[in-house]
């Protein structure tokens, strides 16, 4: 599910070319993106889902934690979707409103994806840019470290951390982000190596700008294209990683929930007739993943004119 390496490399080359051609890269890309039907469709779905997770609670008749005592114990029989009792998506196995929970769970899942991806991108970019800019022995040490870290089964380590230190949403965000910054660091380093020989960087060095200012002001902004694409393509993978963690019961704490946790709960009930408990969360889960994937692919293709 992670962005594939070859495509990212091709994108790196494309943005380098664009550097030479100047500012028109972004407007060209926008035009190409708009022409891509799948990408635009994905973007529209994504906006709808975001709106749902942000404003969906306006329409909810129940809070996400209140139990409808009339349904307790009879959810399978009478807890299905209904406008009369305000449970538009039905109720979960405890009699809580599934609509409210899906709204809240969609928000958490997208947030885990976005925040995790931001963590990965920020750490990866700074790390890669630092290694690439300074070069030499520091570069060598930093990239060898990445090699070492790449061989660590992070999902296993994350499970251990969540079991041992107890779950927390911060740990989940950081842990999931830290799983995936390594590829980003590699790509950014390679890119930085070529940018740092550009005239504007050499000028900055000559007038005595401090190295970290150069990295932040001159190198990172020129990496924006790849960073955006990588971050978008990373999100679906991270949402899936969260659902895996939720499966193990190590996800977010009650009464909060995530799509992964809702699907996991629903999968226990689906064989006994409460189809809505799996159908609604799974629908939003799939729609979110599809949307992010199409938007990410579209962005990449838009920024990489060589392809197609």
């Amino acid at each position, binding site marked *: 599910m992670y962005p594939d390496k070859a495509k990212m490399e091709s994108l790196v080359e494309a943005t380098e070319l664009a550097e030479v051609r100047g500012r028109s890269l972004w407007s060209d890309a926008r035009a190409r993106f708009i022409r891509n039907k799948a990408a635009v469709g994905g973007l529209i779905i994504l906006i709808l889902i975001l709106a749902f997770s942000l404003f969906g609670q306006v329409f909810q008749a129940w809070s996400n934690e209140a139990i409808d005592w009339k349904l307790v114990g009879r959810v399978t029989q009478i807890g299905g979707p209904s406008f009369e009792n305000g449970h538009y998506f039905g109720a979960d196995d405890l*009699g809580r409103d599934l609509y409210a929970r899906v709204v809240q769970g969609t928000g958490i899942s997208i947030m885990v994806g976005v925040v995790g991806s931001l963590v990965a991108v920020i750490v990866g970019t700074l790390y890669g840019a630092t290694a690439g800019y300074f070069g030499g022995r520091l570069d060598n040490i930093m990239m060898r470290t990445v090699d070492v870290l790449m061989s660590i089964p992070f999902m296993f380590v994350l499970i251990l951390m969540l079991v041992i230190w107890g779950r927390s949403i911060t740990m989940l965000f950081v842990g999931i982000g830290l799983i995936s910054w390594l590829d980003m660091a590699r790509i950014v380093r390679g890119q930085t190596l070529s940018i740092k020989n550009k005239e504007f960087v050499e000028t900055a060095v000559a007038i005595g700008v401090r190295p970290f200012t150069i990295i932040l002001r001159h190198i990172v902004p020129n990496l924006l294209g790849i960073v955006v694409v990588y971050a978008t393509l990373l999100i679906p993978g991270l949402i899936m990683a969260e659902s895996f963690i939720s499966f193990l019961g190590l996800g977010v704490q009650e009464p909060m929930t995530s799509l992964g946790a809702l699907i996991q709960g629903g999968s226990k009930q689906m064989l006994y007739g409460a189809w809505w408990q799996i159908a609604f969360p799974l629908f939003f889960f799939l729609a979110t993943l599809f949307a992010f994937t199409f938007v990410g692919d579209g962005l990449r293709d838009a920024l990489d004119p060589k392809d197609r």
Partner: protein
Amino acid sequence: MKLKSTLLATSAALLVVTGGMAYADAHATHPVTGEALASDQTFTYQDIDESPSIDPGMVEDVSGSAVARNLFEGLMNQDADGNLIPGVATDFEVSEDKLTYTFHLRDNAKWSNGEPVTAGDFVYAWRRVTDPVTASPYAWFMEITGISGVGPIMAGEAAPDTLGVEAPDDLTLVVHLDQPLPYFAQTVTHATMFPVPQAAIEAHGAEWTRPENIIGNGAYVLTEHVPQERMVMVRSETYWNNAATIIDTVERLIINDETQAFTRWQAGELDLVGVPTGQYLSLKEQYPDEIYSNPRLCTYYYAFNMREDAPEWLQDVRVRQALSLGFDRNVITEGILQAGQIPAYTFTPPTTAGFTVPEVEAAAMTQEERVAKAQALLAEAGYGADNPLTVDILYNTSEGHKSIAIAISQMWKENLGVEATIENMEWGTFLETRGSGQFEIARAGWCGDYNEASTFLDLYSSGSGYNDSGYVNAEVDALLAEAKTSPEAQALYTQVETIAAADAPIMPIYFYTSVGARTAALKGWPDNNVENNWYARDLYLVAE
């Protein structure tokens, strides 16, 4: 023709193997009931997880104990109603002062290698469990039995051979107790008290329980064990009562997912499985004869932290009472669990032998009365809309515990205006946190180790290691001490319950049931055994 001859050859082989017992034959009938027996007497059942050990001296979980009961046999067994019946011992005598028990062993009890089971095997086993070098997780059980010398041995202050048990001859076992405990004879049915084969343990060390090394004295021998997958046990030819055994093979499958296990039971792959949480009622409609729910000797409760360093409101009996009254137990038993669990207002289950549940006020009230009283108590204690009480519930991670915690916290919120946060931890962390008193309200469950009220009520004594509430009441301590030797113990137990119900160190929620689905063909299940102690040799499959 070929097929037929193979079939004949197989049944002939079976006849030889079972030593003339023809139960495997298609036309066999049950010797007592006369029911026609199925030709394939293979009993397959599910357990949720692999047991840490099946060594009787080391076994620590319920499902591991069940395996040990099939592979080994203690001095006494339990019948389908939980009464004592002879096992390796044919009978026993109790001395006048009730401090000495003399067990007479049968002369035909044999290990699976053909050697006789002797009194010395029990002496060895019991010393081994008590010895701190063995580091048995169930060594504490020896303390409960009250055998003299256990304490100093466990503390490493005395040699294991100072244990109060001796074997004057191969068929006589004499046990000396420190106190005349009324329930001692019950404890010898527990797996921890089973004999173990000294020679095999000395030859193979910890690996003696593997199929290639194990020697047992039970009705079955272990032939295959793939951890996390399956275990196969076949009838033992050397078992003294092998003639009465009907089930030929016992297969234990480890299936972690209860939904998956149930689907496989529906597909006919298993004879006995658990029922997925919360599905009891609807599945019971679908399978009225197969799904059962039996009372168990276990209580589910929340402990209030009454230690001095805990928040002040926990010290206030009115608040504890209010919380205990402020939610509807029927919602939990009928709405969430749905499997015949009984709402609990006191700690010791009503099914406990000889025990009378005291009539406490809370049990007699209607739910409206309870909530009204809870509101009054809470207001009296100074909590209300302007000064809401906030509490924290701690439970160990599990779907079932989560559902109950959510329901209770919601009912508190709606009935009493109490803001409850719920927090879950993994088992290890949870035990440490609860044990060291770093909680406000913690989930707990307790199952009787033997069928007598003291196995529950001892948790109320200030010296108990499992008194998670940190409850101290001198009167309770005195009554419990008196009950150890008193002939009127049951009355004292009822008195302890009454005091505890007033003090509310814990909030009892419900009494467990054991819930399962079994094929209609499976007979002989001990439905009335509240300790849920089943022996595969009592079961049989009838022809359909």
